[in-house]
């Protein structure tokens, strides 16, 4: 319950993640909260957003009346293209990803382990329909993988854990995590606090983290 009244909301998490994206970066945004990052490029910077379905220079949602159902993002939402954009096919798009040309990817997560393992595509439930999309390609190919996620599940389970119990998306891939409570880095020594959300203290975050959180 507390998680919903203290800390950052979804927009603020996206805004916080956007602060760390440098001028000129090529950035891919996952589905969900990461999609919101596109709105928060800090003043004075230019960032080029890549969507894996074939566009560099993705802009925000179109104004009413300017929608084109053939101009969408990886989440299949309507978007726009900025001046200086480029369209390309799927193999070229994933060449950008697999070939280490994208600087930063911001993804959602089910679990992140203290060694940087990421699980974000499957709960491993045998009754569920497996679906992976481009997540495994992104974590294998993009230079820096950042995650935006609630610190805990709806049931209060920690999502930052010592070891992922869900099937992995990638091994040792995550650099930084933006949650509603804190910004946390993955380091050789495990999770390390970078920044606390307003009104949140270290113990509060540690309590909701599934393993040791090193102080900033």
């Amino acid at each position, binding site marked *: 319950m507390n998680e919903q009244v203290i800390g950052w909301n979804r927009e603020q998490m996206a805004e916080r993640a956007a602060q760390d994206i440098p001028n000129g970066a090529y950035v891919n945004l996952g589905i969900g909260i990461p999609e919101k990052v596109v709105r928060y490029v800090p003043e004075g910077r230019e960032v080029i957003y890549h*969507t*894996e*379905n*074939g*566009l560099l220079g993705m802009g925000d949602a179109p104004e009413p009346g300017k929608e*084109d*159902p*053939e*101009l*969408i993002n990886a989440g*299949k939402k309507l978007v726009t*293209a900025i001046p200086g954009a480029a*369209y*390309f*096919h*799927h*193999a070229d*798009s*994933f060449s950008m*990803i*697999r070939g280490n040309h994208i600087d930063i990817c911001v993804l959602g997560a089910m679990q992140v382990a203290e060694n940087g393992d990421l699980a974000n595509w*499957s709960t491993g439930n045998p*009754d569920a*329909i*497996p*679906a*992976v*999309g*481009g*997540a*495994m*390609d992104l974590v*294998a*190919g993009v230079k820096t993988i950042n995650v935006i996620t609630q610190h805990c599940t709806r049931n209060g389970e920690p999502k930052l854990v010592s070891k992922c119990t869900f*099937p*992995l*998306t*990638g*091994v040792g891939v995550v650099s930084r995590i933006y949650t509603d409570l804190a910004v946390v880095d993955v380091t050789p020594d495990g999770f390390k606090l970078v920044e606390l959300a307003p009104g949140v203290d270290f113990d509060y975050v540690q309590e909701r983290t599934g393993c040791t959180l090193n102080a900033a």
Partner: protein
Amino acid sequence: MINKQVNSVHDAVANILDGATVMIGGFGEAGSPIELIHALIDHGAKDLTVVNNNTGSGHVGLAALIENKRVAKMICSFPRTANSTVFPELYKKGEIELELVPQGTLAERIRAGGAGVPAFYTATSVGTPLAEGKEVRNINGRDYVLEYGLTADFSLIKCLKADRYGNLIYNKTARNFAPIMAMAGKTTIVQTREYVDAGEIDPEIVVTPGIFVDQVVTVANPLHESELVAAEEVYP
């Protein structure tokens, strides 16, 4: 004279046999050749292996092809989407097979198939359940899995404009899988909004050269899948 034009979507799909592997362009609605898919439903070919990033929405287009029990196996990266109920139901009943492939690996396998590359290595999926059973090779200190090229008996795609030689250009993110599926299909069938004579598309801006295209049919005003889904249309 070279003339790849066929008169109707029904003529275009008439040679697709039971058991064929069919690549279908599109990422969700964008680029989905819905009239060709509906013609394929009418045509009746079954036991198809279908390659598409998704499994369609509602009860039209690819979802309708699946719902009408024409598809034995889907090769895709993301079989769940908003309004996607047909595939999940059949899959849970064990009535349709799924080969789940990471999206970039899917794209590269299709491109490899079209480019005559039988197999390649990629870091994608290493250390995950999707690499299980696959050959892993260490190259310069990093592990990679071996993946195989994909080809199809037929590819069905949509474009914006086609000329008499089959040169194609696309609209925005509707391009997605179409150019590589055109390469990977033994027979590539295209529905185009506009058909023009040779020379009316600038050679510098051609996206799919005509060598990859076998048949072109004009569908000047294609249906919008999302509108049909919103209206709860069912095909046929």
